[in-house]
């Protein structure tokens, strides 16, 4: 049985934040889940996916976040508790349904979990999704710890049903990927089926209907504010003239700092866990008891602006600061020492930071950027394209996935990237605005997510570029999730359909479509050359299963290669291919047999044919 289905109330369990959130969903009686995977949210959906195999929970990997939220909107308007999860930028994709679903509302609880990523550990930006509360009008909840994240899920569902609208549960990476001890609670019976009751004056957003729905939404914001004022997740701790307003993980750093600085008798904290709408009455009451206030929040000055507005409304004139050159930055994530120092500075507390180890005499340590795995088919594809495009003035728009790493030297094949699917659509612009050869990359899952519409656009508007679809049979980067093109059996799924990328691309009307096996270098280069010579939109589908995934499915029978004494030390294997199975030892390239998976691409590159399979 999945550990998160353990029905033993009171038991303590060590859980990853994302596991705790998934358990919270079970304790809230969630019956339907939908997602598009994205770090740092992925383990929530992974847990729900696994549990759906052994319970009546329905869970699906949807093709993108917009689709996932629309799936959830249908389910939650049929009386079934539904959770939809995504990374922060996923909510941009789902922003269209979000904005109007806020007008329409739900008949059963709908919680939208969004995972922000301050510092961009694995993201393209560090946008602060709390502003989605303001723009949509929907409530936002933010936990400070793993335990609280679990507790907030059932609360969010109750709130959603009370207000009859979706609730956004917003985390940051340091909640999702922290681990803590949580206490299990009861698992209620799931209600897996409901019924949709027709209500066109609420559910069909023609202008006349929407005009009244917006009125309803504004009333709901007022109602939500009243609830926020009394919510257990907005609380004041301590007493004293110095006020600190904080949220999320910042609360932990503040609490530790107050102890470390020994200012507990002078300081009180307002912890905001229900942050949209901001609890105006509570904040105003807090301001009234303070001489000065520091707002500690990662990201944008979301709370700070509101606290200043409340201060102005009450004409209190209490000094309030947060984001400032000498205090907190809008950049990256915070850490305990930084928060301690800034609290000491702002409230003028004597404090000397502990001495920092002097590292002046430490030599420069070689960088260790992430790299494509040994035997990764993306590396083979990049190499083949590089050969086929030799001498051409190229632009390589790329996309989001492991293959983004192709932008690193020596491949250096990744010139433009803004969001999921941008490889295809930006290629339309590049090919129109330049005479350079445009070759773009997209993975199988990202193609389904948002590459298809760009390709339809390219055919319709007759653009001129080659799109390479890197089909490795899984959504690899986020931890090997399924997508519409995969063999569902490998994912313990049954009854799923399968969409052929080749048939789809042909049906769109692409006139030149070829399928390559990237480990076969010569044939691949020849097929790519033909595609590059084609005037118009051409597509190359490079098919080879992700080696990590193949390994974990025991589908790989590695036959390691070695560098024989025919090697003349050209090092072409290392300088142009950079497979991590290679290293230099005793001035010659060697292959680590434990790392090599036997793709044999290096053997096809070696000018001396010196790389040979190890005899068994």
């Amino acid at each position, binding site marked *: 049985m999945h550990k998160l289905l353990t029905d033993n109330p009171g038991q303590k*369990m060590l859980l990853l934040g994302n596991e705790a959130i998934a358990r919270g969903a079970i304790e809230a009686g969630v019956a339907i889940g939908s997602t598009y995977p994205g770090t740092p949210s992925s383990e929530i959906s992974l847990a729900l996916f696994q549990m759906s195999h052994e319970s009546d929970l329905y869970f699906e990997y949807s093709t993108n976040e917009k689709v996932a939220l629309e799936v959830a909107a249908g389910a939650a308007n049929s009386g079934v508790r539904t959770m939809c999860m995504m990374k922060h930028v996923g909510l941009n994709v789902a922003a269209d349904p979000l904005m109007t679903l806020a007008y329409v509302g739900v008949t059963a609880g709908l919680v939208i979990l969004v995972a922000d990523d301050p510092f961009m550990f694995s993201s393209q930006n560090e946008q602060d999704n709390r502003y989605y509360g303001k723009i949509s009008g929907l409530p936002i909840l933010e936990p400070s710890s793993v335990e609280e994240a679990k507790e907030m899920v059932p609360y969010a569902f109750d709130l959603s049903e009370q207000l009859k609208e979706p609730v956004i549960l917003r985390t940051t990476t340091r909640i999702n990927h922290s681990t*803590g001890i949580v206490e299990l609670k009861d698992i209620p019976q799931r209600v897996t089926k409901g019924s949709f009751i027709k209500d066109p004056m609420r559910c069909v957003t023609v202008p006349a209907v929407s005009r009244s729905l917006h009125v309803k939404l504004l009333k709901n914001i007022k109602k939500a504010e009243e609830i926020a004022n009394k919510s257990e997740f907005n609380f004041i701790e301590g007493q004293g003239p110095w006020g600190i307003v904080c949220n999320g993980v910042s609360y932990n750093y503040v609490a530790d700092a107050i102890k470390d600085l020994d200012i507990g008798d002078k300081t009180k904290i307002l912890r905001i866990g229900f942050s949209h709408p901001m609890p105006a009455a509570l904040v105003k009451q807090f301001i009234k008891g303070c001489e000065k206030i520091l707002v500690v929040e990662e990201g944008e000055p979301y709370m700070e602006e509101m606290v200043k507005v409340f201060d102005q409304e009450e004409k209190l004139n209490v000094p309030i600061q947060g984001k400032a050159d000498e205090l907190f930055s809008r950049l990256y994530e915070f850490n305990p020492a930084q928060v301690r120092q800034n609290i000491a500075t702002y409230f003028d507390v004597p404090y000397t930071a502990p001495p920092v180890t002097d590292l002046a005499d430490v030599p420069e340590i070689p960088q260790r950027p992430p790299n494509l795995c040994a035997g990764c088919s993306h590396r083979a594809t990049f190499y083949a394209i590089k050969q086929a495009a030799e001498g051409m003035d190229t632009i390589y728009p790329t996309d989001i996935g492991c293959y983004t790493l192709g932008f690193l030297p020596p491949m250096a094949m990744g010139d433009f990237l803004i969001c999921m699917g941008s490889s295809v659509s930006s290629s339309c612009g590049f090919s129109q605005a330049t005479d350079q050869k445009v070759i773009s990359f997209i993975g199988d899952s990202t193609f389904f997510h948002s590459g298809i519409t760009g390709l339809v656009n390219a055919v319709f508007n007759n653009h001129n570029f080659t799109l390479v679809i890197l089909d490795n049979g899984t959504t690899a980067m986020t931890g090997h999730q399924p997508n519409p093109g995969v063999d569902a059996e490998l994912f313990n799924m049954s009854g799923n359909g399968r969409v052929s990328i080749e048939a789809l691309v042909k049906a769109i009307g692409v006139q030149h479509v070829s399928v390559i096996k990237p480990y076969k270098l010569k044939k691949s280069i020849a097929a790519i050359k033909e595609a590059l010579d084609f005037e118009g939109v051409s597509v190359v589908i490079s098919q080879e299963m992700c080696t990590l995934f193949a390994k974990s499915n025991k589908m790989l029978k590695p036959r390691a290669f070695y560098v024989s004494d025919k090697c003349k030390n050209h090092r072409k294997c290392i300088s142009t291919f950079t497979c991590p199975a290679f290293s230099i030892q005793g001035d010659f390239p060697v292959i680590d047999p434990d790392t090599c998976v036997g793709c044999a691409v290096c053997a096809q590159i070696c000018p001396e044919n010196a790389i040979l399979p190890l005899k068994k």
Partner: protein
Amino acid sequence: MDTKRLIIVAVGGQGNLLASKVLGEAALLSDVPVKMSEIHGMAQRGGVVESAVVFGDAQSTIISDGEADVLVGFEPSETLRALNKCKANTVVITNTAPLPPFTVSLGIGVYPDMDELKTLIKAKTSRFISFNGIELAKEAGNVMSLNIVLLGALIQTGVLPLTADSVKKAIETTTKQAFVETNLKAFELGFQAAVNA
């Protein structure tokens, strides 16, 4: 309870996540408050991975520069890189078997000299334990047991409020059944290596 802060640094794929999980489970068994934080995702593709484990009453799950009580490095150059997390009384444990990044093969960087590396870490911290953990893992029966070898050494230092018994129990419940015996052996070998260091 006193707060103790541990940083584990490794190269993606070396098994640091399991190491911190074992420590977390051991803390749960021993009623020691514990909080951990780690980075998943792109960094796991052969990049540097870092886990922070905080024992005791602190609420923060991450550790600032200069505030680790103990540092465990799975790879020597990564241990050196993580010295910014240490202070004068930090205990440092490192595996000495290098895993040079591909930037070295490409000639973009130079791998640090091992003697210099050891001298530097020793000079800047209070106790330095270094040994070839890969050899010990192989001796235990599985090169992937490097993480457990290092846990053995870590527990020997006595910095953390955890007993060897509780960690062994956590190994039995947390690591794959087929590897428990190997892992327990790995733990003992690491523990002894620290005694002898």
